[in-house]
């Protein structure tokens, strides 16, 4: 799948933001005053900025409000509601913390649950895609929630939680990468089922419908070399888990929190880029480019 920067930014940033909000909402002894304001501004900026960024991905952002209508069936719609409700809950909760020095517990817990629901809904958008075997898998919710929580813990300064969560997330991510690959290999969609011609013999794409690219090939037929992907995976884990953990284990100073968070964010962005770039869409079968998309061995595909 085409790794669109807007979606990568959106899912990564809003995930972090909602993760932060979740921790702020659940915190039995939340920060208040200026300190609360700082955390809330960061969390809302990430969550809201992410949502805003997602709007750039739309062909018609001016119609974005229509996306609230189909909550009964659409995960995207549910995500919109959850995000809206989460922010609606966390805004007064946050105002209580900042201005009144009050923690309205119920509101905070509700906000936290809704924040995680928003992240979960986002992940379900991907999980539901049967057309993308790598996503049609347990991993998107695990990873999206994992990143939200681990990142949220890190960014809200929960060192102990982060020290447990980040290594755990790294393990989940590595297992996910391995199992996603298994899932993709196990996909029973191939050119034979795509064309229904498997009974005649071995089917091979001969001529594409059009000699140039199309929306379909640009959006859903993307390739990344296997070696290249592996290098990126190592870098990603180093950045989102290993380096932050090392930094956190050093004698704590606020000075190191910033590089730890930055490292995590960069790693998360790379992780998210790979989440899209490696995912193969079955429509690539029709173009004879399944084996040339997603993760691909050998030479670069010259077009």
């Amino acid at each position, binding site marked *: *799948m085409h790794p669109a920067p807007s979606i990568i930014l959106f899912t990564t940033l809003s995930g972090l933001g909602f993760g932060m909000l979740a921790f702020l909402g659940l915190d039995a002894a939340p920060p208040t005053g200026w300190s609360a304001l700082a955390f809330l501004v960061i969390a809302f900026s990430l969550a809201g900025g992410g949502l805003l960024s997602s709007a750039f*991905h*739309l*062909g*018609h*952002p001016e*119609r*974005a409000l*229509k*996306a*609230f*209508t*189909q909550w*009964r*069936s*659409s*995960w*995207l*719609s549910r995500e*919109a509601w959850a995000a809206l409700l989460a922010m609606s809950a966390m805004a007064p909760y946050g105002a209580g913390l900042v201005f009144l020095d009050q923690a309205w517990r119920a509101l905070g817990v509700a906000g936290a649950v809704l924040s995680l629901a928003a992240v979960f809904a986002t992940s379900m*958008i991907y999980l*539901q*895609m*049967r*057309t*993308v075997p790598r996503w049609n898998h347990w991993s998107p919710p695990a990873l999206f929630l994992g990143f939200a929580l681990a990142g949220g813990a890190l960014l809200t300064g929960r060192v102990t939680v982060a020290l447990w969560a980040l290594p755990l997330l790294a393990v989940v991510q590595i297992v996910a990468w391995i199992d996603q690959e298994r899932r993709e290999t196990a996909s*029973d*969609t191939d*050119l034979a*089922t*795509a*064309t*229904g*011609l498997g*009974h*005649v*013999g*071995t*089917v*091979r*794409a*001969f*001529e*594409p*419908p*059009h000699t*140039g*690219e*199309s*929306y*379909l090939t*640009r*959006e*859903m037929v993307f390739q990344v070399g296997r070696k290249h992907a592996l290098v990126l995976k190592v870098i990603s884990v180093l950045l989102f888990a290993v380096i932050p953990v090392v930094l956190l284990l050093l004698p704590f100073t606020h000075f190191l929190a910033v590089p730890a968070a930055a490292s995590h964010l960069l790693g998360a962005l790379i992780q998210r880029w790979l989440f899209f770039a490696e995912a193969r*869409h*079955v*429509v690539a079968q*029709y*173009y004879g480019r399944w084996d040339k998309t997603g993760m691909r061995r050998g030479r670069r595909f010259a077009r």
Partner: protein
Amino acid sequence: MTSLPSHTEKSLGLVIDLDTCVGCHACVTACKGWNTENYGAPLADADAYGPNPVGSFLNRIHSYEIQPETGPAQVVHFPKSCLHCADAPCVTVCPTGASYKRTEDGIVLVNESDCIGCGLCAWACPYGAREMDPEEQVMKKCTLCVDRIYNENLPEEDRQPACVRTCPVGARHFGDLSDPESDVSRLVAERGGIELMPEQGTAPVNRYLPPRPRDELPELDVLAPFLEPVAEDSKGFVGWLDRTLSRLS
């Protein structure tokens, strides 16, 4: 609206004959022509005369080569457009309800004024049947020419999709696949019509008629009696000729 109807009164769709399609692309441009001038925004072409032209098309023809276990390789031309699935995943993912399946005839449509151009429906479709218009930024897809098939301004015989009307070899058939007595259902039954990617669980309405067996001219020993020699050389041939002509006259 984004929910799928539990039942449609008809299942209108196409039956495409892969034995007959010569890959001429007539249906591609007839579709482009009609749907540019009709339902929704025109099907635009970006960089139309430049290095990377990308236009929206609702129907495209792939070509595949098949190598059977024995005999020469075969080429199959493969038109592909929306299959108007009963369990259309493109409909349920739509956050705005722009994408919907009609109860009356099963046609899957996009209400362009509700489309936010998020592209999720195109991701959800395993067939590549939806394309974002490069200019209007709304999702375009085959409408089964909903503005032709019921159009009272068209003569009755023209109330069929533009691709079907134009197909020079008659490889495209339009009808109600929920009616077992319809011509299209009969064709599917007779010729073993196939469903694309059944494992995706989309329950497509459109069916494809597989190519008839190729390169199976009866073996020579079956045909040998038709070539039993009457003469080995010219002289013998003239003798045979004379005998035969005598018999004829």
